[in-house]
Structures are given as structure tokens and as C-alpha cells.
């Protein structure tokens, strides 16, 4: 957590200063390493040793042993949950092995609040090349050739979006960075903005040059105070260095960036809703066409791009479009950042080439399921997406393949579910979200999502009927077909996808056959009495060395006995 990390940094700095080592040892504050589950993390360079779950009291030892004497502190190294091996170097960690970092290239390596560190890793070089050597048309051509597609979820080709915006000759044009990361369980954009804010500023300036805009606006969630602070610092520094402002690199190109705060509305991730919100209105989407590329912010041509999309721009300019398009699958190039969360060992951010399989992400990088439980499904695309089951784990991930198995790329949130998760309850959670976040403009979404939520609630309370399942499906399809914007069109996806893969769970509620109590398998029970001791409602009977029995009427399904049983004789409802 931030507070503790700051204290550790201060302590390390004090120690370095005390021994007069300020010229040889440098303590830097970096952005997120992505390995959130094991934080706080300290990395020692040039050895590239990573210490995990460091406590304030460990700092002394790391400093005395490693920094001063070169001895590795074994007990603070990361341990593989499966093999029990310890890892010293970051690259050897399973978590990093299959990753390929373009978007997150600087996160965790540079101090985000120091522009000189960004410049040292070729920062603002792409902007310098573009404004002094290329025409705007050439820049657009490079991005088109790279085949970069929008990372916000839609997957629209970025170069084409820029071209469409560039061709309208108007006095003012705008570049907007969509940092309204509202998808619950997704935190990729936050990490990029906190760990490498200058990349976004540089990319926005390049985009501005390409489409002929002199103003950029970052629309960011008010819930991300640290990211906002770092962007403010970055903008100030970039202006001081002349990378933003008037006559950038003496090219005659002017570009300024302002930050605007969102106020908590998921629908504002939709570009027309976002633009309305920027103009001080309710964030309601409007129909397209006209597209923002023709009439967007203040009715002027506007290109709205996502944070992750922007983070790809400078590397494409520096390394060439061929390099970028050599990574990934036929129709989806480059990498994708995913936020792994839920019941997985290595929670954190991962960046993999398109075409990596879910199997590799969940098990090789993610380290498998917590407590050795069984994998059930991955939920991708948040409230707009669906579930992917074990049968489809070997699907290479790209925009098209995920859609074909009933889910979607979305912004990159990946929630791992284990055998204990109830799919109907998860869907109820998403529908509750969608109905609250529906802007209310169009009826199918406003009323339809509420009705769907009510049906799910009814089912879970054992008040539903088998007919409810048909109504649910009908409603879902109608809402999809008749809603105005992406939120409504995709809100039924979680239900449709779980109805396809986990219909039996819905039926268990609808036909009221769902068991609500735990059970003991007589053959396995050794009569140790551990279960009856932990039962909070005393519904387990049996004496020592005799088979125990759970009273189905009284069981509250708390799972205490399940955890206590040493021989796995208890089965879940």
C-alpha cells in the first residue's frame, strides 16, 4: 500500500545519505510493477533481484545484506506456489516469463514524476521525429500500416479513426484521451497513467499533429486521485521542457493538454456520452452518425482514443509499423494488457502478445487458482462481456476469437472464477451494475435491464419459475437489438453467455432443485469430529470415529465444515 511504500523509500534514502553513498546508490520511486498480489515490492538493480511482500521492518536487512554486502535475502524472494522454488531475478518469474511489454514498458522502471527519466528511455523522441521529419499524412500512414486497433474495447482501427478526423477541414479539432476506466475489475489504464504519464502526453501530441488539433483533453475518473496528480506534474514538466505548448521542437506545431474529471458514470466510456459529459451535460450517448470524427467536442472534429491505445503510439513511431504488425495474430496486432483479478494466485497486470491462450494467462502467468481450487471460468469484458469456460481455454486471444465464443475483449478486465462461484449471482451483480449505470435515455436499456435484474433476483430467492428462463432470454435478445449505445447492446451479454454455458445453474434455481446444504460422504468420513466442532449452528451430529451427518434443514451453507474437514469428505451444495 502506498503509505507504507513511501515510508520505506524515506528510510532507504536516509540510510544511503547516512553512509554518504548518494553517488553510488539511488533510491527511486517507480510506477506499478504489475505484480500487485506480491506487493510491496523492492527491486535492486543492476542485479534485477525482486523482493516481494516487503515489510517496513525488512528494509534494514535488505539494505545491510544486499546493498552493502551483495548477499541475497532469500526469505524475501518470490516463491512459486506450485513448485515451491524461489525466484531471484524478475525475468525468471513465471509471472513475467510469457509477457511482452510494449504498453507497460516503462511502468516500474522509471520515476513517473521525473521527466528526465522518461527522456532517458527515448521519451519524446517519437514526437521530435514526427513533427520535424513527417507530414501528418505520413504519420497516419504509419499508424494504419501498424494495424493498431482501439484498446478500449471496440477494436476500431486507430489509423483510420485519425484519417477520418484529419480529413475534415475545420478551424478547431480535438484529441481526447478516454481515461474513464469504468469497467469494474479493470485497472490497466490507471497503472499506465500512474506509472508512465509522459507516454500518454507524447502520444496525444503526435495524434494532435496527425489530425491537425492543437488541444488535447484527458477525461479521467475522479476516483483516480494519484493518476490525476501524476498527470498534472507531467503536463507541467512537459511544458517547461517545451514538449507541450507553442512551437514544439521549432516546428510551428502548437499543442496543449488539459485534464477534465469525470464524475462516476460508466456510460461515459462511450465516446458520444463522454463528449456530452465534457460539455457539462449528462453523459447520455447520441446517435451516430454524425461520428465524433465529423462533429464531436464543441461540434468540431474529434478523435477519442483510449489510454492503452495511446501508449502504443510512441513505440510504433520509434520501431516502425512492421515491427508492431509482426506481433500478434492476423487481424489483431501487438499486445494486450489484462488486469487479472478474482480467485487467482498472481493478481496483477499482464501484457501478452495477441494470440496468447487463456490457458497461458491463467495458469502460466497467473499461477493458477487460489488454494488449489478448481477453475470454473474467466469473465472478460466486465458487464459487457461473458464467460469463457475450461473448454475454450486454448483459444488464442484476439478481438474476433473472443467474440466467437460469446465473450469480448472489452477493456481488458479478467476475473477468474473458481468452482465455488455461483454464476447466477455473478450475473445478478452485473445486471445490478448495468441497470444502475443505464443513462435512462432509451427504454429497452432503462427498463429492460431492470426487468432482467428482477428475474435474476427472483430466481436466487427461489421464487422464480422455469418460464422465467425463457423471458430472460427473450428480454436479453430484444435489449441487445434495440438499444441505442454499446452499454445497452452489451448489457445482456453476461446472462446470455452464462445461459449458454451454465444453464443447469439457472435451472437448479428455476426448478428449485438447487441444494442449499453441505453434505458428508459417508465412505470418506473418518469421524474426527472437526466439522461438528466448527459448525456455528450445531447442525452436524455424530460421535468419534462414526460417520457424521449434516442436517439439511438447519445448514446455513457457511462452508466452515468444508474447510475444517481433513479428508475432503464434505461436498458443497
Amino acid at each position, binding site marked *: *500500500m*502506498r*503509505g507504507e511504500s513511501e515510508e520505506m523509500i524515506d528510510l532507504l534514502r536516509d540510510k544511503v545519505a547516512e553512509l554518504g553513498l548518494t553517488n553510488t546508490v539511488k533510491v527511486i520511486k517507480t510506477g506499478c510493477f504489475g505484480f*500487485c*498480489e506480491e*506487493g510491496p515490492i523492492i527491486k535492486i538493480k543492476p542485479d534485477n533481484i525482486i523482493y516481494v511482500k516487503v515489510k517496513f521492518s525488512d528494509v534494514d536487512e535488505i539494505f545491510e545484506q544486499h546493498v552493502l554486502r551483495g548477499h541475497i535475502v532469500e526469505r524475501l524472494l518470490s516463491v512459486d506456489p506450485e513448485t515451491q522454488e524461489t525466484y531471484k531475478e524478475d525475468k525468471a518469474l513465471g509471472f513475467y516469463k510469457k509477457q511482452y511489454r510494449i504498453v507497460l514498458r516503462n511502468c516500474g522502471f522509471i520515476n513517473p514524476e521525473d521527466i528526465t527519466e522518461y527522456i532517458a528511455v527515448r521519451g519524446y523522441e517519437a514526437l521530435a521525429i514526427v513533427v520535424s521529419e513527417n507530414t501528418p499524412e505520413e504519420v497516419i500512414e504509419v499508424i494504419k500500416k501498424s494495424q493498431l486497433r482501439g484498446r478500449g474495447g471496440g477494436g476500431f482501427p486507430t489509423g483510420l479513426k485519425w484519417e477520418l478526423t484529419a480529413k475534415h477541414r475545420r478551424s478547431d479539432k480535438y484529441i481526447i484521451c478516454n481515461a474513464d*476506466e*469504468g*469497467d*469494474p*475489475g*479493470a*485497472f490497466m489504464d*490507471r497503472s499506465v497513467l500512474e506509472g508512465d504519464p509522459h507516454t500518454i502526453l507524447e502520444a496525444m501530441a503526435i495524434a494532435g499533429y496527425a489530425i491537425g488539433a492543437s488541444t488535447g483533453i484527458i477525461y479521467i475518473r*475522479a*476516483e*483516480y486521485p494519484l493518476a490525476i496528480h501524476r498527470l498534472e506534474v507531467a503536463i507541467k514538466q512537459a511544458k517547461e521542457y517545451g514538449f507541450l505548448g507553442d512551437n514544439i521542437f521549432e516546428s510551428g506545431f502548437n499543442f496543449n493538454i488539459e485534464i*477534465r*474529471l*469525470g*464524475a*462516476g*458514470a*460508466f456510460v461515459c466510456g462511450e465516446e458520444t456520452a463522454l463528449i456530452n*459529459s*465534457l*460539455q*457539462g*451535460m*449528462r*453523459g447520455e450517448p447520441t446517435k451516430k452518425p454524425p461520428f465524433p470524427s465529423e462533429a464531436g467536442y*464543441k461540434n468540431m472534429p474529434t478523435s477519442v482514443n483510449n489510454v492503452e491505445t495511446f501508449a502504443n503510439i510512441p513505440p510504433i513511431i520509434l520501431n516502425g509499423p512492421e515491427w508492431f504488425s509482426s506481433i500478434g495474430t492476423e487481424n489483431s496486432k501487438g499486445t494486450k494488457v489484462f*488486469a487479472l*483479478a*478474482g*480467485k487467482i494466485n498472481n*493478481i*496483477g497486470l499482464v501484457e501478452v502478445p495477441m494470440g496468447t491462450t487463456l490457458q497461458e494467462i491463467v495458469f502460466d502467468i497467473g499461477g493458477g487458482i487460489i488454494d488449489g481450487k478448481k477453475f470454473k471460468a474467466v*469473465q472478460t469484458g*466486465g458487464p459487457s462481456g461473458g464467460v469463457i469456460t475450461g473448454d475454450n481455454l486454448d483459444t488464442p486471444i484476439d478481438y474476433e476469437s473472443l467474440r466467437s465464443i460469446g465473450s469480448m475483449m472489452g477493456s481488458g*478486465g479478467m*476475473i477468474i*472464477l473458481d468452482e465455488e*462461484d455461483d454464476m447466477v449471482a*455473478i450475473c445478478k*451483480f*452485473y445486471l445490478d451494475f448495468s441497470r*444502475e449505470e443505464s*443513462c435512462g435515455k432509451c427504454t429497452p436499456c432503462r427498463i429492460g435491464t431492470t426487468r432482467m435484474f428482477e428475474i435474476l433476483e427472483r430466481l436466487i430467492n427461489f421464487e422464480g419459475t422455469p418460464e422465467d428462463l425463457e423471458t430472460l432470454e427473450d428480454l436479453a435478445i430484444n435489449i441487445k437489438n434495440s438499444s441505442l449505445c454499446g452499454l445497452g447492446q452489451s448489457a445482456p451479454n453476461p446472462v446470455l453467455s452464462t445461459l449458454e454455458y451454465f444453464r443447469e445453474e439457472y435451472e437448479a434455481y428455476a426448478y428449485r432443485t438447487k441444494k442449499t446444504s453441505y453434505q458428508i460422504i459417508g465412505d470418506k468420513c473418518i469421524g474426527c469430529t472437526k466439522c461438528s466442532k466448527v459448525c456455528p449452528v450445531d447442525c452436524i451430529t455424530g460421535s468419534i470415529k462414526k460417520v457424521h451427518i449434516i442436517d439439511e434443514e438447519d445448514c446455513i451453507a457457511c462452508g466452515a465444515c468444508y474447510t475444517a474437514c481433513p479428508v475432503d469428505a464434505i461436498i458443497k451444495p
Partner: protein
Amino acid sequence: MIKTNLNINDLDKNLLRDLDSYIESLEDPKGSLINVLHRAQMLFGYLPHNLQLYVSRKLDLNAAKVNGVVTFYSFFTEKKTGKYVVSVCMGTACYVKGSEKVLEKCLTLLDVEKNEITKDGLFSVKDVRCIGACGLAPVLSVGEKVYGHVSADMVEDILNKFRGDENDS
């Protein structure tokens, strides 16, 4: 029904002066309604009806429009909040790790409904959208302070820390 107070004269004059100078610094005040509301909520803690009316007159906007915007966005609140706002994250990652139980525990311990203020005025509890700290799920924050890997059993200790502060001062 809460009785609506539309009397602008009830508002704190010093805070209004701060708000005015912010509005005057804006290039396009009308188009910056959301920024103005952010500032107003930061200054006053919440956005009562008379403050919304004040903003609407100041920006020459329809009061109904301002109210429409305030009620549209979940970040804005029309109700007074406690000295410490306890926010329980309801993002998916927190949800699957049991944040509902944490929220329930907060409500029972403090004996309040969601978005209501405790009798001593010290706390109010709300559920919030994903704050992007999924690595720490379930997450609870009190004011600016973030607590990670929270279980229902830990809630009482966390809340007591803030009660303690109150007794010391």
C-alpha cells in the same frame, strides 16, 4: 421526503467566495458545470439543493439542468456525509472476494442505512464503483486511507481507529 431548502442565504459565505473565484477563473464556465460541481462538493462536502440553485444562477443555467447533472453522476451526493466516509468497493474483483459481507458488517456495526450518517455524525457508509485496487480486494477506504484484503472481522478495528482519533482531539 426531505424538505427542500432553496434559501441561498443559508450557505456559508466564505465557502461561496472560494467557489466564485474558481468560477471566475474558468474560460467557459457554462461548459464546465461538472468541474464547478466538483469544486462545490469539495468545499461544502455535499451538494444541497440551495447550493445547486446557487450554481445554476451563477452559471446562468436552468436549475433543473444542474439537478439533472448532479443526480446523473454517482460521484455527486445531495446528502450530507459523515466526518469520515466509509467506502466499500463493489467492483467485480472485490465482489467475488466477499465485499458484500464487509459492507453489511459496516452497516450493522454503525447501525445505519447506506448513504446515511451515524447519530454522532462521525461516519457515513457508501458502496463505490471499482477503485482499481483489485490486487488488494476486498478494499475498504475511510476518507483517503485505503485498507486492503479486508474481511468482515477486521471492520470493527478499522472503524475504532477513527473513533480513537476523535477522542484524542
